[in-house]
Structures are given as C-alpha cells and as structure tokens.
C-alpha cells in the first residue's frame, strides 16, 4: 500500500469496524489425542499465518475458537479476536464429545459478540462462518442448542459447515448438524488436517473478498472446491 499521507493523518474516524466472524469448533475428545490433535494444532497455526497475509481478510476476519472435549466445552479465545491478534491456543485431547456444550457457548457469543445491522444506520458484522471439525458422534444433547441457534429469526443466518474425520463419524449426523454442506475425511492423518485448514483458509479469504464488495454479503458466495481428501457428503 502506498505510504501514508503524512499531512492528513489526524483525521477523525469512527472506530467501528465491519467484521467477518469465523468460529472454529474443534473436537478435543480423547479419540483425537496424540498425532491428530497435534495436527489440528498445527492446522490452526497455519490458518492464522495464511489468513493474516491476505489484504482483505486481515482487516475483517475475527476468530473465535471453541473446543469440545472432556466434560465440557471451552471458549479458548473468550470471544472474537482479530486474526492479527489471534494467538493459536494450545490444544489437549481428553474425554467425551460435548458438541451441545460448544453450541451453547457459540449461541452466547452470537448474542453478545456479533454486531447487528441497524436499519438506516450502521452496517453490522457480516454473516458468521462456523466450521466444526469432529472425529466421532456427539455425546450430549446437541439438537436443542443447535435449534436455538438456527431459530435466531431476528439475527443473521449462519453458515455451519461440518467436517468429520476418521472411521467413526456418523455421516447422517454431520449433515443434520450443518446448515449447508457436510464433508468427511477418511482418516486423521496429518496431511488430511493440513488440507482441511488450507481449505478453511482459502474459504475465509474468498468470503472476505466477496463481502468487501458493496452488497457482496447478500449474494450467495461460492466457497472454493475442497481438496480431494475432503469429500462432500451427499
């Protein structure tokens, strides 16, 4: 970008920004321990590096990371953090798969952290993108909190994209959890997770670029085609 105009730097401006919220709901149950959770950790770090290099994404993307493992879910970022300030958290895998608890935290954040549009006034945040990565079936009630989120009639519609990895996923459940497309990866190898996070990064950068156009957020946005290792569940 061209050097700043040194003469006119002290011009007032509003601090309100229009953000693209990205939520990563990550399975940290016991079955993900070892190499899989390390690969996920590495993937999150790669995601940050790729996205913050993008001109549009670095200004608009805000990240929230929610893990679900053990007895409960944990909002590791405690809300939405700009991609530039986002510090990839340390991930540990243990216990069960409380996806319902993760949905409850997500719902609270959608109420508290997302800025809504004001009719005739300020434009709020763009439609959030939510990626859910899991290697098995949820072990708590996930339907009710998911319904709560979907029934947000006065709030923004959401994009919930589910990706299952490994041999123990329930494809029908993955489709039921998502609001659009559901995907699967056959294994929990490092290469699969690398491919997954590269695709998430590309998707986020594509969406942020489309949203940057006037009126862009209201048009259906075509996400990049996932790599072969990630297969669409019809």
């Amino acid at each position, binding site marked *: *970008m*061209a*050097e*700043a*105009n040194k*003469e*006119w730097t*002290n*011009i*007032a*401006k*509003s*601090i*309100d*920004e*229009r*953000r693209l919220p990205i939520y990563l709901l990550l399975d940290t149950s016991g079955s993900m321990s070892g190499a899989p959770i390390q690969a996920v950790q590495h993937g999150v770090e790669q995601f940050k590096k790729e996205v913050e290099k993008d*001109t*549009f994404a670095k*200004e*608009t993307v805000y990240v929230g990371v929610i893990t679900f493992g053990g007895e409960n879910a944990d909002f590791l970022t405690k809300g939405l953090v700009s991609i530039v300030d986002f510090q990839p958290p340390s991930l540990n895998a243990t216990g069960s798969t409380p996806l319902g608890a993760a949905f409850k935290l997500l719902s609270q954040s959608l109420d508290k952290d997302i800025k809504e*549009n*004001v*009719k*005739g*006034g*300020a*434009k*709020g945040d763009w439609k959030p993108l939510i990626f859910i990565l899991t290697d098995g079936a949820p072990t708590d009630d996930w339907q009710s909190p998911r319904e709560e989120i979907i029934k947000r009639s006065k709030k923004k519609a959401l994009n919930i994209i589910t990706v299952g990895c490994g041999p123990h996923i329930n494809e029908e459940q993955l489709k039921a959890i998502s609001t659009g497309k559901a995907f699967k990866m056959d294994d929990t190898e490092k290469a699969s997770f690398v491919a997954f996070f590269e695709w998430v990064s590309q998707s986020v950068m594509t969406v942020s*670029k489309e949203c*940057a*156009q*006037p*009126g*862009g*957020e*209201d048009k259906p946005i075509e996400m990049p085609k996932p790599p072969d290792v990630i297969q669409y569940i019809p």
Partner: protein
Amino acid sequence: MPERGFNVGDRILSKSTDTHSDWCSAFAQVGDYCFVGASAIGRLHLHKAISRDDAFAARSSGAWLAVAVSDGMGSRPRSRYGASYAVEALCGFLLHEVLSQEQCRENIESVSSSESVKQDTPNPEQKTPKKSDTENLDKEISGEDKAAIKSISTAQVSLPNINTVPHILSDCAYGTISWSRSFNQPLTENEQGAIVANSEDKVDIDYEAIMRKAFENVHSGLFNYAQSQECDLKELHCTLIGFLFNTNTGEAVIGHIGDGLTLALQPEAGSQILIDPLIPEEIGATYVITQKDWKNYLTIRKVLSKYNVYYLMTDGVSDDFVYGPPEILNQWAKDIYREVCKSPSLPEASQSLLKYLANSEIKGNFDDRTLALIFLRSMGNQDDKCNT
C-alpha cells in the same frame, strides 16, 4: 455574452473509449468560495484491476456553482458511465435551469419597471470601416498591443508548485492538470445598480423545482445515453447528489437519491447533516436514479442557513464516521476543513485531498472514495482556524 465559469471533475464517457481515470482531483474558485474535489479508486477495485465507479463534477456560471457526486453500483460493469454522465449532466442542467429562471425574473422586472427601454443607437462618432481599412486592421497592431506583446514574451508564467503527488500516481499512464486565471472582475456601476434593484423587487425562484427538473432531465438523459451506449439503463445504475449554490447570496438547494452524505459546517457551531436520503430496509442496498420509480426516492431540500463549508461525499467516505458518535462526525468535518485550509494553494489542496482519499486505510472499507468541498477560506493559513 455568457458568464465566465468553469467545468471540472469527471467527464461523460464516450462509447468508443473508456477514459474514466482511477484518480481525479479538481479545484476552482467562485467569488469568496473555493471548490476542492477528489475521487480515488477503492482498494477492492485496484485489487481486481477494474475501474473506479465513483464520479464528481463541478460547474459554475457567474456566482452560481453546481456540484454533483455519484456512486456507480459495483455490481454493474458500466456503472461508471452512469455516474460520470449523471454528475456532468446534473451540473449543466442545474445551471441552465437557474440561469433561465433568473433571466425570466429579470425580464419580468424590466417589463414592470417604469423606465423606458432605451434603444441602442449607433455612436455617431463611430465610423463604419471602409473595406480598405478593414484589410489594414488585420495587419496593423496598435502601440498598446505591441507593448503588451513585449511584456508577455518576457514575463514568466508562474504555475502552482505541486509536490504532493501520491505515491500511487508515480506509476500512472496519463493525467491532465489544467489551470485558469481568476476571472472574478469587480462589478461595474451599472451591474451593481441592477443587482440592488433586483433584490428590492424580487421575484422568488423556486430552487426545489429547479433541482427536481434537473434530476428529471438527468434521468431522461441517462435513458438516451444508455441507448447510445447500446446497453440497458440498469447497467448504468448510480446514486446521485446535487448541490446548487449562489456564492453571493448563500442560497442553496440539495437533491439526493441513494447513499452518501451532504454535510455543512459552521466552525463555531459544529456540523450538520443537510439532508436525510431515503434508504432501503435491505442492508447494503441503495436507491439509484436509474431505477424506474426513482422519483419516489428523491429527496430535495432548500438549505436555509449559510455555512462556511459544505461537503458532498459518496458512502466510501461517509461510512468512515457517520454511524459513530456525533462528535466523530463533527471532528471529521473540522479536521478536513483544517487540512484543506493549510494548503498554500488550491491545486495543492486538491492533491492533498486526493492523497487522503487514496491512502487512508480504514479497516474493512475497500470502496471508491469521493469527497467535494465548497468553502470560505483564505489560502496558506497555517493556523487551525480558517479565516472567513
């Protein structure tokens, strides 16, 4: 003889060549008021290697100043054609309408006046030149002209010093910078008398009707222009803000359809949004002058007070501050006025404004940015306060 005036900013595009530049700045002076305008391509359009869709224009005749800004819809590939047509045409129509009305008013007043109309009679002292004299007139140069020619040939033409070229512009393919000397001559005794007589026996001009008619003419013009461009009118979708201002009397009227903002500033009192345009419910949508029922969404307002500064801008600029607290809007208006007044010359003010629009990195704002100012000032004032 027609009044002197200027025509600056973006121009109507031809069918054969797309000449809409990525950056444009302009400046002018009308009486005690100055005009400075600039329009910069947004970062999204730069990234996509497509054209700027915003446009602005200003035109004057005598004391009348017309200014317009327009934002072409990004989803329409030819919207810059609509925007550039709309601004130039609106300025022209506004001046035509107001000057026509003024002429009608003067005609009415002169007919109702008790003075008899004096016919022009030839000056008996003036000789009709003979044919041989006429031939000689072309060849003979008066002593006065000879002296003038000599002084011109030895005089240096002093042009404003423009150093503040934005970094981006150093790689530009083309550009035009043009200046004109001031043509604001002092009024003769007869002209002063006529104005006094007019103000005492005034026939009101309907400025809102002038603005409405000008917008109607622009819409019709856009329809014909679309046909000449062999495209549908909706491919030229654009917003439009128009401002007609008399720099002597301070009378002003605004017309507005779509997003963007018109603002005024009285430095001691603060800023004021001059018009509240109609906005659709759908977030991110806007009304345009090219839609079928555009008349339902045109807002016109006569400005009742005289201000030191007027601002017209597209939403690429207004989105920076308009939805924040009111003090941000006030401060922004004062900051811009302050910085413009600091420039030692109008050309440099317009370049600095362009630089601000082109280089200002507002997070999440990737749109084209266009801003026009009309203001009272004295140039080269280094103080924060501008003199009136």
